[in-house]
């Protein structure tokens, strides 16, 4: 990994961590709209995969999508404003935490229904193959999604059509309250790849360098037209399933074990040990991101609220070619 890349990836992980920590505070201390599903603990997955994607490569995201947005390069201000339900939000206050996504950086949406982004990712990969655009699609989903029918149909179609898609399973051990081994008869979800004629690999999802290396192989394979890969990243979410859900179904010892292998700490230690960077540089990035997050909160707070009927313009795209007198009703 080159120095510049390493610093950028470190910055991305810090951005995600501090974005989530700030939101947690905000939800505790003031009325915030809706709920949220937080990404802290899983930073290495989104950042390690998106490191290999160009701006015009696509990703599909999930209900736990803040990290995917930041990793793909969405502006933090617009993300924060979306959390505040402001018109300057990336989704114009139409999506919130659950559907937060920025199409201009290649996000096809954050599907709030488990597994539902998977067939969409396959369609985008089909489109890329048909248009010979060389674009790759990374499809993020969780261990829960691997038990949805959409998982099977999506991987099967991607396998049989040899599509340029990388399926990234973020196995954070729990689908809401349920440990994946209570509802999944195999240890490794990646083993299922064999059924779809694609490679399946298990990777330490807390280790940015491990994710980075496996993603490099998978993205390269997709880009060369050799088809899809299923990467299973074993990872952990530090927070409960959603906003104030306390995660009483898991022990504090378990959480502590995972925290010992925190992705930011691991990567930081690696960087300092490798002498690629010095501690001062990393502290500089940390301070920089602190300022960036504070700026984003200011920006969001000072942005305008939507008007009650703003939603109407988003139900349908007005058909320019055939405007009819009835369109206003539709």
């Amino acid at each position: 990994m080159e120095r510049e890349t390493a610093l950028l990836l470190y910055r991305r992980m810090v951005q995600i961590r501090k974005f989530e920590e700030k939101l947690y505070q905000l939800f505790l201390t003031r009325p915030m709209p809706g709920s949220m599903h937080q990404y802290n603990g899983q930073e290495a997955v989104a950042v390690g995969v998106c490191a290999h994607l160009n701006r015009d490569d696509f990703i599909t995201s999930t209900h736990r999508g803040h990290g995917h947005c930041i990793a793909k390069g969405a502006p933090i201000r617009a993300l924060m404003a979306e959390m505040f339900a402001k018109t300057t939000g990336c989704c114009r206050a139409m999506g919130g935490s659950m559907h937060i996504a920025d199409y201009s950086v290649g996000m096809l949406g954050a599907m709030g229904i488990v597994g539902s982004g998977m067939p969409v990712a396959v369609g985008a990969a089909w489109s890329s193959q048909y248009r010979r655009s060389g674009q790759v699609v990374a499809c993020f989903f969780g261990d829960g999604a691997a038990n949805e029918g959409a998982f099977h149909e999506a991987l099967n179609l991607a396998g049989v059509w040899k599509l340029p898609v990388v399926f990234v399973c973020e196995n954070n051990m729990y689908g809401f309250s349920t440990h994946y081994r209570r509802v999944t008869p195999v240890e490794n979800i990646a083993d299922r790849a064999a059924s779809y004629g694609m490679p399946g690999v298990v990777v330490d999802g807390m280790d940015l360098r491990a994710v980075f290396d496996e993603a490099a192989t998978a993205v390269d394979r997709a880009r060369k037209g050799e088809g899809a890969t299923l990467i299973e990243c074993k990872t952990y979410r530090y927070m409960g399933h959603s906003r104030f859900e306390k995660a009483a179904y898991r022990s504090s010892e378990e959480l502590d074990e995972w925290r010992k292998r925190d992705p930011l700490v691991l990567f930081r230690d690696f960087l300092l040990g490798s002498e690629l960077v010095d501690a001062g540089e990393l502290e500089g990035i940390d301070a920089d991101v602190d300022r960036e997050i504070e700026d984003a909160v200011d920006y969001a707070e000072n942005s305008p609220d939507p008007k009650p009927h703003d939603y109407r313009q988003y139900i349908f795209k007005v058909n320019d070619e055939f405007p009819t007198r009835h369109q206003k009703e539709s």
Partner: protein
Amino acid sequence: MPVKKIVDALNQALREEMDRDERVVLLGEDIGVFEGSYRVTEGLHAQFGEERVRDTPISEIAIIGAALGAALTGLRPVAEIQFNDFLACGMDQLCNQAAKIRFMLGGQVTVPMVVRAPYGATGRAAQHSQSLEAWFVHTPGLKVVMPSTPYDAKGLLKTAIRDDNPVLFLEHKLLYGATSPGGKAQTAVQELGEVFTPAPDEEYLLPFGAADVKRPGSDVTVVATGMMLHKSIKAARELAGADGIECEVIDPRTLVPLDRETIIDSVKKTGRLVVVSEDVMSCGVTAEISALVAEHALFYLDAPIRRVAVPDTPIPFAPVMEQAVIPQIGDIIEAVKSVVYR
């Protein structure tokens, strides 16, 4: 040569749009090599090749989801779902994803996709006979089209393909005019009359949200789609001859967007409304159109609104039972007579 069958009109629309725009691609079960279970894609695989006419696995989630993903990234896919009943398998992709993604993303994307599906009862029992349009009318974000003639089918499908929103395009099996190679599909086409307008060869488009008055009349407004439109026309002809009752028969053609003005204006003129549909009664299309008229033209009504639709039952298999639940010409005649008190 104008085409006289809906199956040919749809085929021509697909062929013209694929010729015109290479972003138009087709996907579905048995649409390529086999050329479609109702023959709508006949010759297209041979002409446009595997890349543009793709046979899929039996995976309705993946078919609709792949169409959505392709639509979000520069293509204009047309997916075929073999029977509209199977839409239930891909419901999440159509109703939660395709219908809402532009909305949830605050208008960042457009979703130019069409999902075509045959509907209607043809002796295939409860899982291959439904008319499910109301499910999708009930899902804001989808447009819903139901052509009843070759002329309408071609012009509306071309418009659907050029629309930047997800369109559900429902085709009545008995109106195709083709027989299914997999079975003994019946057709009602040869019995249809003057309103079964052929589709001309040349290019034309029909706007959504514009109902067509298939038969003008002054005594009763009859609103019907698809196969029921033709049954209503026959009923109207009989009523005019035998009883001197003139029905105005309106085909909305698109249920979303719905041309409310044409229906309301007609009821204001006739003072009577009969709504005919092959979907079920409760919360169905007949309920919606009745409510529309009750809200906007109640004091123009000279009689209660009458609905002719399938009672709240799955479609039974035996022909005698199937025909008992599907609205018949006699049911429409009876309903019309009851509102003109003859």
